[in-house]
């Protein structure tokens, strides 16, 4: 435990156990056995960061390596930050109390654009120079990875290099590379190591590239500065998940975290092709784990953690080819252990409701469906592939099985959306209520409608789309709120302002680094938490940096425009995305390639990988 965090400090902050570590399963390597220390840094509070599966995987995998100590660090909440700054206490890892400045690597995961100011804040608290150009020989390498790494450009000034794609293999290669460099006496210093690291496929060193801009402010090119630097960095992908290690003894925290249960990853990738979905593009292709492998992992996880719930996680678990038999087997296997099985999301069909019936037993806690849009036109535009009948059948099945409350997720501000389309959300919610009356013969179904504001993301069919401006989004929220003033319908939505800053950074370029720094200097942190977010602060920072919010968020991008992120490659073909964008405008659907023909996104061919789906009879 960090000796500087004295009794009076820890007794004055909320949830002090966030800062003291010592959890079951945490790994403290003795200094004598440590050649490399990497801090896995999550730019949000402990409860959020501890729920992130990616770091559970890397923590386990890296600590298995001889000489490597993977440790954890989270963003201190504002109360603790104030104490640390007041007393000059640096941000340290939970395992061995190393200040971030004393680590060899500080690796941040980029989960969400609004956590970027926390990265700056954590580096500052950890005693690490913010700008990569200012770091000296004794400073750690600041590295980034995770879903937002497919456009890391707004952070290009701050990190030394990025890991593009899945980390299981590359992270171990990177540690080996570092150990060898260190053993050789660190030839060439920091630059020398970067020159070595860039030889590994999947490593992106932003300082090895220069961005050029057009007169209209758009990007002309991002070019490598030397011949030995790849023009584009392609993502790393694990060919077969059955062959890589999955953590079977994860840390079990003392307190309640956001996902406080066993997370068993059944497959990676999703090929449904929803046009708004970033994860559905960048994690391709679909690769399932074998049911036998999953059952074995589940047994170990239950024995090692003591958790009483297994969540079968993936981007769309109902699509797992062997889901029904897997769930039967797991329920039977763990009945004696009082372990239940759960799914993070449901597909809109009666199969999913049947599964839900089984996993939830008699706990009627309410079911959640995501039609995403209210009208058929909009669902076709986003390629959701779901009809109103599908939804009515699913909720009908749920009501017939005894559920009386459902939650429906929607987005507003999608391309091609009119006020009628927004109001269709309200109509749909009311039809769901009426369905309950039809099925149950009485009134009173509780329907919760949650509508988030759409944020266009890079490497999706909607990457060209100009986001609805603040006034438009607010008007649509108001329309919907008005239309949903109905008994037993609850309407939830967020302030649209956060979505606008998210959109700026999602599709931003290197010039945004200046605004990010200014916003942080003005006090921005925990921007994803509405009580900490200030739109005015961001407006000021953008203006001072000479940047225009609308240019990044609201501007529809030219069909031929070069995007700031195209040198980072998840291997989804631009022509495919463009075709999808055109089909969206024509309200045409594209089928799922998982069990059908190839739809031409280019990922399998470019990466030399295949879809692995056990229902398809193919490996």
């Amino acid at each position, binding site marked *: *435990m960090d000796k500087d965090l*004295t*009794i*009076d400090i*820890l*007794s*004055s902050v909320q949830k*002090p*156990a966030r*800062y*003291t*570590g*010592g*959890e*079951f399963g945490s790994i403290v390597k003795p200094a004598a056995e440590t050649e490399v220390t990497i801090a896995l840094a999550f730019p949000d509070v402990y409860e959020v960061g501890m729920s992130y599966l990616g770091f559970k995987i890397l923590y386990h995998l890296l600590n298995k390596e001889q000489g490597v100590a993977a440790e954890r660090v989270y963003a201190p909440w504002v109360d603790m930050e104030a104490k640390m700054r007041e007393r000059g206490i640096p941000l340290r890892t939970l395992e061995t109390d190393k200040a971030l400045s004393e680590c060899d690597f500080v690796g941040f995961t980029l989960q969400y654009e609004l956590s970027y100011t926390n990265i700056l804040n954590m580096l500052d608290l950890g005693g690490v120079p913010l700008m990569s150009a200012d770091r000296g020989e004794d400073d750690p390498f600041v590295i980034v990875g995770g879903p937002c790494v497919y456009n890391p450009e707004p952070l290009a000034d701050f990190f030394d290099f990025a890991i593009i794609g899945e980390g299981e293999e590359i992270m171990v290669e990177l540690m080996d590379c570092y150990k060898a460099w260190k053993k050789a006496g660190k030839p060439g210093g920091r630059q020398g190591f970067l020159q070595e690291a860039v030889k590994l496929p999947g490593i992106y060193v932003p300082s090895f590239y220069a961005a050029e801009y057009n007169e209209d402010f758009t990007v002309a090119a991002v070019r490598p500065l030397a011949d030995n630097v790849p023009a584009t960095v392609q993502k790393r992908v694990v060919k077969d998940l059955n062959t890589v290690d999955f953590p079977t003894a994860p840390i*079990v925290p*003392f*307190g*309640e975290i956001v996902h406080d249960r066993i997370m068993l990853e059944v497959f990676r990738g999703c090929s449904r092709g929803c046009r708004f979905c970033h994860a559905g593009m960048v994690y391709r292709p679909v690769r399932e784990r074998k049911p036998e492998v999953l059952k074995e992992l589940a047994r170990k996880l239950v*024995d*090692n*953690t*003591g*958790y*009483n719930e297994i969540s079968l996680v993936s981007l769309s678990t109902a699509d797992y080819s062997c889901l029904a038999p897997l769930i039967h087997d797991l329920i039977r296997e763990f009945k004696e*252990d*009082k372990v239940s099985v759960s799914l993070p999301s449901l597909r809109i069909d009666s199969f999913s409701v049947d599964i839900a019936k089984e996993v939830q*037993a*008699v*706990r009627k806690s309410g079911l959640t469906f995501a039609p995403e849009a209210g009208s058929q036109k909009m669902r076709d535009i986003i390629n959701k592939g779901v009809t109103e009948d599908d939804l009515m059948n699913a909720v009908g099945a749920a009501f017939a099985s005894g559920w009386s409350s459902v939650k429906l997720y929607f987005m507003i501000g999608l391309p091609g959306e009119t006020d009628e389309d927004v109001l269709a959300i309200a109509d749909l919610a009311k039809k769901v209520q009426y369905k309950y009356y039809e099925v149950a013969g009485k009134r009173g179904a509780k329907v919760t409608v949650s509508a988030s504001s759409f944020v266009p993301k890079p490497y999706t069919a909607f990457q060209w789309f100009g986001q609805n401006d603040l006034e438009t989004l607010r008007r649509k929220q108001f329309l919907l709120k008005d239309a949903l003033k109905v008994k037993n319908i609850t309407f939830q939505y967020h302030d649209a302002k956060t979505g606008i800053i998210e959109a700026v950074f999602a599709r931003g370029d290197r010039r945004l680094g200046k605004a990010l720094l200014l916003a942080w200097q003005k006090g921005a942190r925990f921007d994803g938490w509405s009580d900490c977010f200030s739109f005015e602060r961001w407006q000021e920072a953008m203006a001072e940096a000479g940047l225009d919010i609308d240019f990044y968020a609201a501007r529809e991008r030219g069909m031929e425009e070069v995007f700031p992120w195209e040198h980072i490659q998840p291997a989804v073909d631009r022509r495919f995305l463009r075709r999808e964008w055109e089909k969206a405008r024509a309200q045409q659907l594209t089928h799922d390639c998982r069990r059908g023909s190839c739809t031409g996104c280019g990922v399998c061919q470019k990466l030399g990988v295949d879809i692995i789906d056990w229902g398809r009879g193919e490996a």
Partner: protein
Amino acid sequence: MKLRMQITKEKDIRFISHLEYIRTIERSIRRARIPAAYSEGFNPHMKFSLASALGVGVVSYTEFVEIELSEPMEVQAAAAALSKALPRGIKVLAADAVDTHHAALMAQAAGASYRVTVPYTGEVAAAVEAFNAAEQLLFKKAAPKRKEKFKEIDVKFYISQLASHRQDGEVIFTFDCKITPGGSMKAVDLLNALNEHYALQLPVEKADIERLSLYRLDKKGQKCSMLTADAVHM
């Protein structure tokens, strides 16, 4: 059959809350594969309990967990299994087994001994003497969940005698605090009461509070161990 174990909450994890401590014990019991009994119904609960609640930040060397078993298990083996399944900051010190219908430990606890260390260079001997001689010492303790924000208690009812000694710029208080079916008082409130009545300036927020033991009283009113005489010590 009911297993009872004396466990600790050590310095490194002193800041986990009572609820977090309970959850941790429950998961450790599951990891240890101790055959705990569960309640009936759709949402079965493990039948186990802790002998007393400990405040956040308080270290303890004598917490007690009682686990109702669905099938018998040897005490030594259960204690060894739980030891392995606990996080670093919790250790098993002793264990015994009693009949399922044996009175709960929580009901038997009569008092707890504490050691409280505070950085303080001022004089405390006179205050301790006056405290020990006092018949009564009324103190308004914070009661945030009640309508009236304070509840007046007689500190002397809970703590009759207090000892202190000085060491390296710190004052160390030791005392026993009574536990009744109606509750007990927090060690930290003793310091607050001393500050209030005897004009001391003990830095309460820096107090290092350790619960040294939890005990019951025998028929003669003598302190005795919570566990039975044939308890296994680890």
